């Protein structure tokens, strides 16, 4: 396999950055890029040793730093690995990577380090996926769930269901293959009972993905409301220093389009936040045209109304826009400015409504609870398994579906058909669990990793 290199630390300015090189030529590349302070000591290439020196390219030395060598197979990838730590400037890091690439390494593909680690037997597929989860975690909850999964907790839960189904399949086949043996071990009604129980467990697991996704990928959220209802105060509150994790995905600091914020354990992906600020600043830009687009794409709509003023035509237009987009059930009606409101509470056609004061930071806990409840937090117990991974969710849903078919087959068809369905469910669970994996899945999984991980 060729020797690969990539920047292992996040892009941007920082104190220290790291370039990782992996492959049979890793040490050779290091020799060409790294000038050790103590040449004799570096020649020994001791596993796990730390060497100080400087980095160079064809023009000469450009930085100094540290080099660590990991010998195969005792490294992350299982190959010879060299980690070069330079100062964390964008330019210097790029220069170090470029130098490594010019001296025998090629740019690593997405997820290639982890993939090599997996290929070289350093980790299982589910562990590899869990590492992806740990890297991607932006919420504590996601981190906890990922860490649990890396320990195999979901595997255990799926394993139990798998074993139960296997036992059931075995009973069916024993009964079919040994018709003379006077076997009455399991009756059709008993079988059906067991299947119904298993289906409920699988359904619950598949259902946990709503929450799992909310704590990992996040929910597409639109904040809407006519000007001066306090959308930007709410936005600032959500993005406030103390609770915001902000990533700028597209564009510059001046033109932030999407912001990712954490609300309790749940991640919100706020769309068109620039637009919200803009339209609040400039009163002339009234109109809800811009909001309609955001509403129709959102999985969560935070509709902001001003408690201190009566509902007017603009509010009503917004309400009908929400209803027309079919997002009524996905909307939280936020009645803002509870601090200065004196009149009676507005009666609006939403199941979920709460009063807050964005300015005084009051009522935000209510919002946390409400959104949490909408995305299944209430149904998930402290120790319940949560599926954060879409692949696993699809497999578990397939298994639940197959078990459902088996139940139906027991009514309308014959036991051999029920047996077939149970086998399909078994295969689906094995897939969720990583016991059985097809080529497509492996490729799919590893393309999700960022370069350098």
């Amino acid at each position, binding site marked *: 396999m060729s020797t690969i290199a990539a920047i292992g630390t996040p892009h941007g300015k920082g104190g220290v950055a790291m370039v990782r090189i992996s492959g049979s030529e890793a040490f050779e590349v290091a020799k060409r890029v790294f000038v050790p302070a103590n040449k004799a000591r570096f020649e020994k290439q001791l596993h796990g040793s730390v060497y100080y020196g400087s980095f160079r390219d064809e023009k000469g030395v450009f930085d100094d730093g540290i080099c660590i060598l990991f010998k195969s197979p005792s490294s992350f990838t299982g190959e010879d690995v060299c980690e070069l730590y330079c100062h964390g400037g964008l330019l210097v890091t790029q220069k170090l990577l470029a130098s490594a690439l010019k001296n025998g390494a090629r740019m690593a593909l997405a997820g290639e380090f982890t993939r090599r680690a997996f290929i070289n037997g350093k980790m299982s597929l589910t562990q590899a996926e869990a590492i992806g989860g740990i890297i991607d975690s932006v919420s504590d909850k996601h981190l906890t769930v990922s860490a649990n999964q890396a320990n195999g907790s979901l595997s255990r839960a799926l394993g139990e269901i798998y074993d139960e189904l296997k036992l059931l399949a075995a009973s069916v*086949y024993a009964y079919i293959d040994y018709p003379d043996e006077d076997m009455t071990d399991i009756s059709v009604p008993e079988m059906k009972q067991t299947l119904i129980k298993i289906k409920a467990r699988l359904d619950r697991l598949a259902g946990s993905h709503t929450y799992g996704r909310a704590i990992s990928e996040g929910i597409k959220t639109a904040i809407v409301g006519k000007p001066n209802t306090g959308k930007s105060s709410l936005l600032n509150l959500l993005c406030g220093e103390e609770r915001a994790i902000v990533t700028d995905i597209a564009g510059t600091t001046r033109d932030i389009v999407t912001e990712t914020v954490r609300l309790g354990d749940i991640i919100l992906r706020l769309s068109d936040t620039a637009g919200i600020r803009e339209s609040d600043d400039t009163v002339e830009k009234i109109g809800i045209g811009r909001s309609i687009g955001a509403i129709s794409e959102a999985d969560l709509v935070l509709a902001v109304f001003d408690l201190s003023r009566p509902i007017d035509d603009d509010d009503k237009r917004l309400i009908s826009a929400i209803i027309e987009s079919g997002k009524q059930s996905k909307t939280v009606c936020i009645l803002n400015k509870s601090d200065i409101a004196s009149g009676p509470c507005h009666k609006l056609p939403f199941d979920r409504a709460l009063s807050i004061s964005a300015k005084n930071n009051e009522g935000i806990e209510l919002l946390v609870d409400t959104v949490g409840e909408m995305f299944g937090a209430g149904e998930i117990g402290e120790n319940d398994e949560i599926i954060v991974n879409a692949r696993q969710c699809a497999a578990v849903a397939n298994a639940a579906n197959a078990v459902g078919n088996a139940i139906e087959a027991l009514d309308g068809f014959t036991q*051999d058909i029920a047996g*077939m369905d149970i086998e399909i469910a078994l295969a689906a669970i094995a897939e969720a669990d990583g016991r059985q994996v097809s080529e497509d899945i*492996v490729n799919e999984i590893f393309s999700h990793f960022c370069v350098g991980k």
Partner: protein
Amino acid sequence: MIKYTAEKTQVAIIGAGHAGIEAALACARMGVKSILFTLTLDLVGNMPCNPSIGGTGKGHLVFEIDALGGEMGRAANAVMLQSRMLNASKGPAVRSLRMQSDRVRYRDYMKKIIENTENLTLKQSEVVSVETENGRVIGVTTSFGAFYPCECVIIATGTSLGGRIIVGEEAYESGPDNTLPAKRLVDSLAEAGVKLARFKTGTPPRIHADSIDYSKLERQDGDTDPIMFGFAPSRENLLPCYIAYTNEKTHKIIRDNLDRSPLYSGVIHGTGPRYCPSIEDKVVRFSDKERHQIFIEPMGTDTKEIYLQGLSSSLPEEVQLQLIRSIEGLENAVFMRTAYAIEYDCCDPLQLKNTLEFREISGLFGAGQFNGSSGYEEAAAQGLIAGINAALKVKGQGEFTLNRSESYIGTLIDDLVTKGTNEPYRIMTSRSEYRLLLRQDNAKTRLMPKGYGLGLVSDDCYNAFKEEEEQLASLIYALEHESIKGGEALDDLLESRGYARTGAGIVKAELLKRPEITIYDILALSNDERVYDKNILARAETEIKYSGYIKRQLAEVERFAKLEEKRLPPDIDYTAIRGLRLEAAQKLQKLRPESIGRASRISGVSPSDIQVLLIYLSQGGKQ
């Protein structure tokens, strides 16, 4: 020692049991000069155990053998005593035919067929050596010193190879039914490089029919209008079977004498079949079961010998007699044959290719119990495939293999040669992933064109088959394209089966898909003048009722085919592939599977090893 050179032949088959017979007939019928060796001419096609052909999964094998032009199904039909379709109510995929057979007439039938087959010589002789030169077979030598030069040898030695019978504390070297054991051949095979294992099986006692009190037993008759193998015209059931049960007294006798059972005292070393346990095994392993079922089966019309299925044992004779007499209805049983356990040598089937030829010894084939299987039907199926391939090899015409998605025969062979076995292997419907496609009723559709292509199926047979296929196709077409008018008659039917009256008409196939509606209901409402064969009706009903499931399995077959098509180059050095676990690399290096599909079925090769192989292949075989 070679004393003289006998006539040159092309294929030599060692053993004239169920595997050897099919192998020899296939070779001869394909125009290859063959010789079939047997230890005794009086026991050609002997049934040393149960007097029946078929059973769950096994019935499927017989239908497939029949469709390919084998003899077993026709022989069973000819000597049928009673026929029953097992699992009739458990679904079309698992319906299996079992026929009680006249043991003596079965032997006579087979011997006569063999004696009247062109290109085939039947010879009573003990083969003591398989001669090889530079890794290929050149002939066999008999105990009288006759050297028969030939190009291929098929070993079908059953339980005779190194056979040893054990009854209680008594043990002696013997083949089944006290025949000669083939002892010297064992050394010759080991010398040729065949890796051998030792398995064990057993058979129950036989008693005299007049010593049974039938009034105390449950009678079990055959099906009315029984289905025959190959859907041949029905014959009448000749004799009933009976059912008896063991009781607590029986179990106590067994428990009290366990120390005298060679299975438990350590006298027997061979591995026995889990699927066909002795009565002492059943009593020990299922100690909470109050009774075990015993089938009382006739052995033929001209004999009073009765077979006691379910009482297989290796306990001392006097204990056997005691325990039989503890069973209600058998209190006065008169013993005719004592139950015994038998140990024998067989090969490790991982040495074989899917053609059943040894990977490392060109021209040497194995079939039947020698390959680690158990059962007459499993043996016959392998005999047929080994015979076909030996004939093709002689003729220089390539190979013939069946895969898992088209047959139970392919499933059986793939299991044996890919996974190996550590106990006598028995086919079961649960061994197949594609059960719903591999039914008895479509065996001819699946395999008869292949049998015809090989020259094993006669023109008459093939033309009749084509005609049936056309009838079926037109019947299915009619059901899918014709409707039943809405009205009283249809609504009355719907209501009587628990469905709502609709007043509307319906396409026949849609109506048939309802679980409570049969094809006969549809015929009754159709005023259809045409007369259909009952087997064709039954098959059309299955094809339509289960069409959704059949489609799904077909999709799985496609996925299966994709993995089977991913070829693994024959020269891969698995030990050099990074990431393969050592065990997997060693297994793959040894077995050299042709495809990813086969590699994935090798025990010890895990899904993650398969992923490594897939990645290896996707990188063009480079790392």
